[in-house]
Structure formats: structure tokens, C-alpha cells
């Protein structure tokens, strides 16, 4: 049984190819404006990577914001269920998930692979990848470097704005007051960690928590989140693809 999961996210599109319940390969591309071609491209990439012909694919399952626009998919599933199934496959003992993506963050409570409760940030960009992307720009630091830079800080600056636009102007005024780059970076990440921690407490996650989504790739954020929450987090080797993996597994469970 060959199943492909496609996660059409706000920033990146991901595909995972699963054969007989095992993940074989994956692909990640920027989503761009044309979400359908991004989805087609990652789909074709995983097929050619695994040397599999289109006609041998049992099913294609879509998740992510663009899930209903991927017309060649057989079925759509929400990211919340998809991430839960993907993470459960990798870490069966996990009972909580923190997913921070390009435009939202989700906190999911899990019991035996099933969603029991979840919470998402409101519609603004606070506590998401977008927040880091914008504020990193004000620091003139590539987004990939932000986490590492923050880890070098001994005295994180205090960033009080939750709003992405206001935080950016807060960064500019800290910069003008002569704060070190690493201290501002640490302040930004601390503010995200605090924001996420509030949601984690609301849902009541305590231990065996996984951290996924594009933002989990940023080394510093995991450290700050762990400090804020007081637990260590499971981060998969490729945290960006648990949604696509889960969609593929969801498809199998439904067919």
C-alpha cells in the first residue's frame, strides 16, 4: 500500500511517501502563490525519489491551509488530526504536541493517538513563525541564525509586545538604545516561548510533549521553550513533515 500525504502550509508545502505504514521519503518546498503547483511538485518529487509510478499510488491525502484546494487528493484532513497521527507514529508515548508553523501555533492534547483537546493562537501572528521572520529582519539576522544567536545571550532583553508589528518597532527601539543583538534575539524567542507556554498550560500538557512545525527547526527555541515549560521536548529529526506523514497515515486508516 503506497500512500502520499501532502501538507499545504502557509509558508512551505510538504509531502511524505509511506509504503506499508513506513515513511520512505519526503520533500519540502516553499508554497508560494500557486499552492496547487507547489503540491504537484512535492508530490512528483517524492514519487521520483522513491522510483514509484503514479498509477501504483493507493491514495493521496491533503492537510494544511490549502488542503481543500489540492484537487488531485482523495481526501482532506485537518492539520490537528494529521499532526497527531504523524507524531503518534514517531513517538507512541507522546500525549501532547506543540506545533509552531508559519502562520499559526497549535497545542494538542493526545490520548492513545487521538486528539482529546486542542487550542490555536487567535488570528494574529503572535507566537508563530511569521513573528520570528519579521523580527529577525529588523535584527538583520537570517531566520535560521536567530535561535543560535539567542543561545549566546546572557541577559535577554525584555520584549513585551505580543503583536508582530509592535514587536518589530520594539526591536528597533532596543537597537537604538544599544542592546546587543543576541540579547534582543533571546528576548524575542523568550516572548514566543511565554506565549506558547500560556496555551500549553491552558490545555494542561505536562509531560511527553513533542515539538514540531517549521519553527522547531530553530535550535534556540526548543531550549527556551523547555526552560519556560520545565519539561524536555521530543523534536523529530525532521519536525516540519509530521503533518504530511500524519495525512498519509490517516488516509491508510480510512481506506
Amino acid at each position: 500500500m503506497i500512500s502520499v500525504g501532502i501538507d499545504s502550509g502557509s509558508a512551505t508545502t510538504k509531502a511524505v511517501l509511506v509504503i506499508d505504514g513506513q515513511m520512505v521519503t519526503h520533500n519540502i518546498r516553499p508554497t508560494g502563490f500557486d499552492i496547487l503547483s507547489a503540491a504537484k511538485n512535492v508530490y512528483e518529487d517524492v514519487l521520483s525519489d522513491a522510483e514509484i509510478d503514479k498509477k501504483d499510488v493507493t491514495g493521496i491525502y491533503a492537510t494544511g491551509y490549502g488542503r481543500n484546494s489540492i484537487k488531485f487528493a482523495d481526501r482532506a484532513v485537518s492539520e490537528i488530526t494529521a499532526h497527531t497521527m504523524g507524531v503518534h507514529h514517531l513517538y507512541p508515548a507522546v500525549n501532547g504536541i506543540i506545533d509552531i508553523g508559519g502562520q499559526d501555533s497549535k497545542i494538542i492534547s493526545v490520548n492513545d493517538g487521538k486528539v482529546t483537546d486542542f487550542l490555536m493562537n487567535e488570528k494574529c501572528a503572535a507566537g508563530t513563525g511569521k513573528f520570528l521572520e519579521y523580527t529577525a529582519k529588523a535584527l538583520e539576522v537570517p531566520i535560521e541564525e536567530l535561535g543560535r544567536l539567542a543561545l549566546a545571550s546572557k541577559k535577554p532583553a525584555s520584549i513585551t509586545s505580543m503583536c508582530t508589528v509592535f514587536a518589530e518597532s520594539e526591536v528597533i527601539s532596543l537597537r537604538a538604545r544599544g542592546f546587543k543583538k543576541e540579547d534582543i534575539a533571546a528576548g524575542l524567542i523568550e516572548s514566543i516561548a511565554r506565549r506558547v507556554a500560556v496555551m500549553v498550560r491552558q490545555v494542561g500538557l505536562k509531560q511527553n510533549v513533542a515539538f514540531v512545525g517549521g519553527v522547531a527547526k530553530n535550535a534556540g527555541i526548543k531550549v527556551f521553550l523547555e526552560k519556560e515549560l520545565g519539561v524536555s521536548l521530543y523534536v523529530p529529526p525532521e519536525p516540519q513533515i509530521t503533518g504530511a506523514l500524519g495525512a498519509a497515515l490517516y488516509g491508510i486508516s480510512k481506506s
Partner: protein
Amino acid sequence: MGDYVPTYVLDLPQKPDSPAAVKYFLDELNKFKGVMEQLTGNKVTVEQLKNEIISSNETRKLLYRLYDLRKKDSPPISGVDVIKVMQKQYVLSAEDFKKALRNLIDEAEQVKADKADYKADYKADYKADFIHMPRIMISGCPMPGGNTKVPEIIENRGGVIVVEESCTGTRSFWDLVDENKDPMIALAERYIKIPCSCMTPNDRRIDNILELAGEFKVDGVVNYTLQFCHGYNIERYKVQQALKNAGIPVLSIETDYSDSDVEQIGLRVDAFMEMLS
């Protein structure tokens, strides 16, 4: 506002259980009666009031019947349709509304459980009849005319709304006004009991939500808050706790009248439906 239209602010005692509350509210209603008499030039008589109370109670009894039909395993009418019906009662005259309501109830009573023809409108993904759909209660802020965004999202994504705990839902008809008492006292007693989140303590609302959840066999509750209606936002915590303890999942949505968050809400609702089914 008084510069534009005649305005009278009716002062609500916010602790409805305190002994003086009904008395104070009655006093306010009497003052309001005076204002209305002056404004319209009509005298409010005991007899007229009694007739209006009887008429409004008739409407309430019809609404009870309509809502009773929704307790069926396969409700004969969608939640969005009921919400639109409820919105009409603020526009139509009492007589016109009752007439339309009687016709609707007669029609709805004829619908056989297996003939839910609105299922054709649902996404290919959710071909189930109402009978297989998660039964949803919407609880919280009112939904006045034009505001069906969240209910439409719920029913387009595989849920069926069976009851609305709000001032445009059950709270508008749940208790009858006593027809045998002095009409002003009866009105004061009926309306002071409405469990709006601006009242304190408001355990009455929590008890009512749990009661409705049982009566309407609710699978999940959507706690609906309009932005800046902060009473409901604060009370959300208590509602969530009470429902969690009763083993009923809750999805909280805070929104406004704009369409900007339709997709974001859609995602939460999709996930909630997947969680319930």
C-alpha cells in the same frame, strides 16, 4: 446616542439573587413604562399587558415545540435554519411570526428521519445524514440578523447544531411569564432570571448548559464569543470546566461579524468534528 434617537437606559441589577433585585428591577420597568407612555401617547393597561404576555407565551410554547423536534436522532431541520427563524422574531409582528412558526412546525413534523434532503449541500467528504453527524450546541453570545457565520461553518463541515444556548436561542423562550400574577411583577421576575454572563453569580447558566446538553444529546459544545463581549469570554473558563467534568468536548471560538477568519475557524471546526466522530 440620545442625540439621535430617544434613549432610556434600563438599569439591570447584576446580582439577580439578592432579595432587593426584583424590587429594584420592577421599579426600573415601571419607570420605563412611564417613558414609553410619554413617547407613544398610549396608556399601558393591565389588561393589554396580560394579553401581550399570553401572546408571547404562545410564541414561547411554539418555540419549545420546534426545539423539541431537534432532540430527534435525525433533526428534521438544520441549526442554521432555526437560527434564521429565531432572527425573524425580532422583525415580524408576533402574529405573523406565530403563523409562520406553526406552518414550519407542521412541515418539520412531517419530515421522515431518512429524508434529510439538505445533506446534498454538504462536502463530498461528509456524506452522512444528520443522524451520523456530531450533535453540536452553540453556547454564548447572541446571533442577531445577518450573523450566521459560525453556524454555517459548523454545518458545512459535518456537524448538526441541535440547540443554541444564547439570548437569540433558548434563553429567549425557556421560561414562561406567569400569567396569573400582576403583569409588571411577572415580567420583572421572568426577565431578571435570564442567565446572561453580565449577571453574578451566574451558576444558573452553567446548570442550564449541562441540562440542555443532556436533553438534546449533545456530542460537543461550541463556545461562541463575540469580540469585546467580555462577560462571555470570562465565563468561558467556567463553562469549559463544567463541560470537561461532564465529559463533553468544547471548542471555543472568539470572532466578529467579518469574514476574515472563516478559514481559520473552519480548520478548528474540521479538527473538532474529526475529534468527535
